[in-house]
């Protein structure tokens, strides 16, 4: 199978600068800066159909096009590497194997939007990834790929690594900008959108690691090639999937978008662990509603997964076997989100702990029939929160109510968790 991001991977160690270049790395940068205008780079990314790999799936080139070109003064590019959602570890695997695709992609993205200073906002604890990036940035600078007048094109860009002080909310793009500015990472209201008024009040683009790392291959091989990588005509490109839970191989793999959930679990994951039967999974990170066996044939692409009632999200799949209590699994997820609420707005700060308490009570056998309705109302009300954290946190709760209402009611009727003896 063709690999794009994992093409340069070496067993047990990161690829070196020399190897990456010998294998065609930084060719896209040379082509982009010497042969293409910034608008042509942007157009190639628009035509490729590349969508954001960080969870929301927004078309990347379109996001770039919102940056006003005629405004004097600085513009910023930020790579969001604050990967903290339970079940998601793809960016870590990518950067531990190869930091160069990201660096190259960022220079091309910076060129497209006219950015002179870019940042990588990396999660604390990703030590190996941060070390690789520091080395890669240094090597790129030495080779003349960063700094003043890159490759004689007249385009200049600096790239800095910022290590987060650690909070899940920093992954929200406006909160991330506050964190970079040295403030509490509360989200900002949108509009104005970051593309117009972002970091230090300047036009800013925030993209995920995997998104930016895909850019060089699009410039080298063309948008049509990238589009054609996907398994179904509606999708575009490859996607990193990281699978955990009760499968035989818990792996992070690069697969064509549009492979079905069943093909992923039976293929690269080698099926379920011996003696385990598939019950459900989180299809795309902690904030996505569950999939069950009835979703086995759903093509894993943004639109198809959305049509099936969930979100492709980050591609972080957590597989639950038959004896998993879905109330307890949802409680685990809600506990995470309740703790990580930044406290800025009331629906999230008060609503999430309330949902957590209700789920705790149901799991402990003290649930009431009306709790189901209260949970349902919260799924509705938490959509009115200030940012996407609380609506995301309600993803699994919504899935629990839609797919496993019987299981909740069984807890209530039996006054105990039916999965515990």
């Amino acid at each position: 199978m063709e690999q794009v991001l994992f093409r340069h991977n070496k067993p047990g160690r990161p690829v070196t600068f020399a190897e990456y270049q010998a294998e065609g790395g930084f060719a896209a940068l040379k082509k982009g800066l010497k042969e293409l205008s910034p608008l042509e780079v942007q157009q190639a990314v628009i035509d490729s159909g590349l969508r954001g790999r960080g969870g929301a799936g927004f078309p990347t080139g379109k996001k770039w096009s919102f940056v006003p070109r005629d405004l004097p003064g600085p513009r910023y590019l930020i790579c969001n590497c604050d990967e903290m959602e339970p079940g998601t570890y793809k960016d870590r695997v990518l950067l531990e194997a190869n930091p160069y695709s990201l660096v190259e992609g960022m220079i091309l993205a910076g060129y497209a939007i006219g950015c002179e200073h870019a940042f990588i906002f990396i999660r604390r604890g990703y030590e190996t990834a941060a070390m690789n990036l520091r080395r890669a940035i240094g090597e790129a600078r030495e080779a003349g790929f960063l700094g003043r007048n890159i490759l004689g094109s007249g385009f200049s860009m600096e790239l800095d690594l910022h290590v987060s002080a650690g909070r899940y909310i920093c992954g929200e793009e406006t909160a991330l900008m506050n964190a970079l500015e040295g403030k509490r990472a509360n989200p900002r209201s949108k509009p104005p959108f970051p593309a117009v008024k972002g970091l230090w009040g300047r036009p800013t683009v925030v993209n995920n690691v995997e998104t930016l790392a895909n850019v060089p291959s699009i410039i080298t091989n063309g948008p049509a090639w990238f589009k054609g990588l996907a398994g179904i005509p509606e999708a575009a490109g490859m996607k990193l999937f990281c699978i955990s839970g009760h499968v035989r191989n818990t792996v992070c793999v690069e697969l064509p978008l549009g492979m079905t959930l069943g093909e992923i679990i039976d293929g690269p994951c080698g099926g379920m662990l011996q003696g385990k039967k598939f019950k459900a999974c989180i299809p795309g990170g902690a904030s996505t509603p569950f999939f069950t066996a009835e979703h086995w044939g759903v093509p894993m692409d943004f639109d198809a997964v959305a049509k099936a009632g969930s979100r492709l999200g980050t591609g972080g799949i957590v597989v639950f076997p038959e004896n998993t209590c879905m109330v307890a699994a949802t409680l685990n997820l809600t506990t995470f989100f309740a703790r990580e609420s930044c406290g800025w707005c009331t629906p999230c700060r008060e609503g999430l702990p309330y949902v957590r308490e209700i789920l705790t009570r149901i799991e402990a056998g003290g649930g009431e029939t009306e709790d189901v309705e209260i949970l349902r109302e919260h799924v509705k009300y938490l959509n009115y929160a200030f940012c996407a954290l609380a609506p995301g946190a309600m993803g699994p709760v919504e899935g629990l109510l839609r797919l496993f209402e019987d299981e909740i009611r069984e807890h209530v009727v039996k006054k105990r968790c039916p999965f515990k003896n």
Partner: protein
Amino acid sequence: MSNAPAEQTPTEEIDLAAANHIIDKYLTLHGNLMPVLQGIQDEYGYVPKPTIDLVAERLNVYPSQIFGVLTFYAQFHLKPRGRYIIRVCVGTACHVQGASRIVETFFDKLHIGHAETSPDLRYTFEKVACLGACGMAPLAMVNDATYGSMTVQKVEQIIADYNQRPMKK
């Protein structure tokens, strides 16, 4: 979650030379508060009260603003912490692989709870989610060392190992 600043002893005696050195390094950087505080946290193992006043004065920000930042982020601590920080992941992938048993075993063996530090300052224990290595669940870390596929037996081995290790850095 950090502890309330009020619990701090007011007459803390701290050598501020290292903190001054860190501030010097970032003095002209745009958005320097975060790297300065991170540097202090790394240097002292926590953020001592006198360094907050120093940073406030030298970077021209209110101490309240600094407290706001310090109490927001997981990295910062206002009290001294253990020489060895044990983190056990209780994220969803670790949860389904039995993380709670690993947490309880650490509680039993170390006699300290979540976010607590042993009186001899050897250990601090934390439940965290998510460490981003779901493929190795259940997962534990001691400082920067990662321990995957944790079992009760491995908990005992880890504690026996770190009991022997030096207290000095």
